[in-house]
């Protein structure tokens, strides 16, 4: 198990048993210091100045792009678009690629366990283009229904978009196998990496998708920045969704031409300070090693699943064993409403999320409007899980169950 709690100032400051890392992770000191240090010394706008400060800023900004490429095994920094986060990345693909290439009747295949960020953008572009949405279901034990997936592929979807790891169930679909099958039918393959990339080593070459999006803030990095990786030929096919400075080659009064990829997708002043923080987050995770992160995640997930399964009337939503699942664990306790659980746990400094987790369609499939969710990161340890269990026991007592 990792022992890195001392790297996280928020823990010393009293963040307590923070079990909502799937919503957003705490930041290590290295990330905060990198941003603070940069913003207080050589900060200037990027890509714009011939003077020293600006070129230094530009180099640091571009460094984030190449570190991102390296982190996910992309062969070329030009395949990386720095954007606001997963949500923006997926919207760029849906509107910018889908808006250009989808035709009436084209099918967009999603899964019922997607986060709203991987549903709503597709609904928006479907409305605009006349494409139609289709969904793959899940199995009893909370995994993607692979047989269903294969059957749906027979309908020749033009786009197949799925999550690398469910933020509710924790289940990890076999992205490489799904991508291969989907690409074989000619579909564009989009992977929502928001939960996967922070917790597992990810290599875009071996996944073989067309696009992968993820967020800095779930990866121990800053808010306001994220990554959209795309195959260069797909990026070339994508229209920019925002116009403005830096993304143009030329602007005439009545029309403009775009800069080369990836710059054409980065209109306006980008998140510069955030880019420096993102680089620091990649460095920090690589220092630990993503294999070790994954091992820590697996060990702790197994411990949590075991302890939770011992609590009476507690029901876990999602896989009950540590295989093919990550450390986002949703559950309910008897008839205690998840918000009541969250309040009770909060009194013991245990932070869990309660609600629909931005996955309303999935909650409908599960037949419940809300669950409580505990989720882990590199700084989470057994004591956090133990505190969760004690809190749940108190809740049982208060509610007389």
């Amino acid at each position, binding site marked *: 198990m990792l022992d890195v709690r001392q790297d996280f100032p928020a823990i010393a400051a009293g963040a307590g048993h923070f079990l909502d890392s799937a919503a957003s992770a705490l930041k290590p000191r290295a990330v905060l210091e990198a941003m603070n240090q940069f913003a207080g010394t050589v900060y200037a706008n990027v890509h714009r100045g011939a003077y020293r400060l600006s070129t230094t800023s530009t180099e640091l900004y571009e460094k984030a792009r190449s570190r991102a490429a390296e982190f996910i095994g992309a062969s070329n920094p030009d395949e990386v678009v720095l954007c606001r986060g997963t949500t923006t990345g997926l919207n760029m693909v849906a509107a910018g690629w889908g808006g250009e290439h989808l035709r009436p009747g084209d099918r967009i295949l999603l899964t019922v366990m997607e986060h709203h960020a991987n549903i709503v953008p597709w609904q928006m572009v479907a409305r605009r283009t006349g494409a139609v949405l289709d969904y793959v279901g899940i199995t009893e034990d909370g995994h993607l229904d692979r047989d269903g997936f294969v059957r749906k592929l027979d309908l020749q979807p033009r786009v197949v978009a799925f999550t690398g790891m469910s933020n509710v169930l924790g289940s990890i679909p076999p992205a490489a196998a799904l991508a291969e099958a989907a690409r074989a039918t000619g579909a564009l393959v989009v992977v929502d990496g928001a939960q996967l990339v922070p917790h597992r080593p990810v290599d875009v070459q071996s996944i073989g998708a067309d696009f992968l999006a993820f967020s800095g803030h779930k990866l121990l990095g800053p808010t306001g920045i994220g990554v959209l990786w795309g195959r260069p030929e797909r990026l070339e096919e994508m229209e920019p969704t925002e116009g403005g400075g830096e993304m143009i080659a030329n602007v005439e009064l009545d029309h403009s031409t775009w800069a080369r990829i990836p710059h054409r997708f980065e209109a306006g002043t980008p998140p510069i300070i955030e880019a420096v923080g993102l680089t620091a987050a990649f460095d920090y995770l690589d220092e630990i090693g993503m294999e070790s992160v994954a091992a820590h995640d697996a060990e702790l997930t197994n411990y949590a699943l075991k302890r939770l399964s011992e609590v009476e009337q507690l029901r876990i939503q999602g896989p009950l064993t540590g295989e093919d699942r990550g450390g986002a664990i949703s559950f309910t306790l008897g*008839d*205690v*409403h*998840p*918000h*009541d659980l969250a*309040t*009770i746990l909060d*009194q013991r400094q245990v932070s869990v999320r*309660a*609600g*629909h987790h931005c996955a309303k369609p999935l909650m409908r499939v599960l037949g419940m*409007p*809300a669950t409580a969710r505990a989720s882990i990161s590199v700084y989470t340890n057994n004591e956090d899980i133990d505190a969760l269990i004690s809190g749940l026991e*108190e809740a049982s007592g*208060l*509610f*007389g169950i």
Partner: protein
Amino acid sequence: MALEELYREVILDHYRNPRNRTALEEPHAAAEGVNPLCGDEVTVELTFGGDVVAGVSVRGHGCSISQSSGSMMGEAIKGLDREAISVLSRRFQESLTSEDSNSESEFGELAALQGVRRYPVRVKCALLPWTTLDEALSA
């Protein structure tokens, strides 16, 4: 910890056995309320005999606070006239949101919800049925 103050017996009772859940056939006033942040929902329906509440239905789903608050509200407004309801609604909402809480006594059973004052996030759970009621009455 004052969690026992929050989750009083009477609250859990209303949560588990909510009163007045049957939908009204032809309500004279109705509204639906949602707390977009947590997803809690409440539907309020009323019929009147003259100015006085004759029939009440309060349905919904959500946490013990919002649901018990709705259930107790239904009981509390039965037989009151519009004027009395709006005074009660205003005074009850104030009792949960203003600095100094007094006069628990005037609220009867509803006073059990005063424990929520120590949990600011949960105050809006307790208020949801009441703001929905206000909406039904003003529509």
